[in-house]
């Protein structure tokens, strides 16, 4: 299984802090496309993090990975 986490406006849009579902074998890019279709999200300027490290769109999700979607940050 995988945990998918949302923050900021993405969390508001999805209406959940996280989803749990199996996405192993899929790429981040494929996951993004699925989420865009199912939730109407816009994810082109959103980075993914896999297990708390930024990941590129072609990274392949492994069983147990935690995926987070990171909109452009605005801390500081």
């Amino acid at each position: 299984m995988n945990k998918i986490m949302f923050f900021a406006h993405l969390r508001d849009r999805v209406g959940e802090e996280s989803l749990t579902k199996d996405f192993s074998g899929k790429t981040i890019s494929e996951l993004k496309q699925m989420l865009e279709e199912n939730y109407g999200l816009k994810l082109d300027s959103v980075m993914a993090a896999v297990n708390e490290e930024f990941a590129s769109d072609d990274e392949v999700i492994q069983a147990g990975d935690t995926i987070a979607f990171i909109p452009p940050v605005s801390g500081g």
Partner: protein
Amino acid sequence: MNFEISKDPIDIQSVIDKVVQREAGAITTFIGTVRELTHGKKTLYLIYEAYESMAVKKLEQIGTEIKERWNGAEVAITHRTGKLDITDVAVVIAVSTPHRADAYEANRYAIERIKEIVPIWKKEHWEDGEEWIGNQLETVAYPKGKPEAKDLHE
């Protein structure tokens, strides 16, 4: 723990205390506070949200980068989350170094990196609405649309 995300108000002195060292002649701090006016628009309050575990890791990464670039530097950073009013402290960065030029430069580097790679977001609340701040407004985080290759791994 020199790198923290805190739901409670930040005690500035306690962040400074973490970087005191006998080899330091200079300590700089950066204190980010909530400003009332941005481009003439009046902010009522902010909400900061963090991906806390990853944010701590990314603050630690910034500390590591600074110690590699500035010899003898010590670094501590605490970022607040939750609701903040005008003049409240959102972030405190403390850097100590043997000589003062480095303390200024390394501190400046820390705040710029926070605005690039640390997963923290603010939601501005105005009289006429609210919005999560990303690159569509005053900030352009990810100057090239996303963190650059060097940001992907430590």
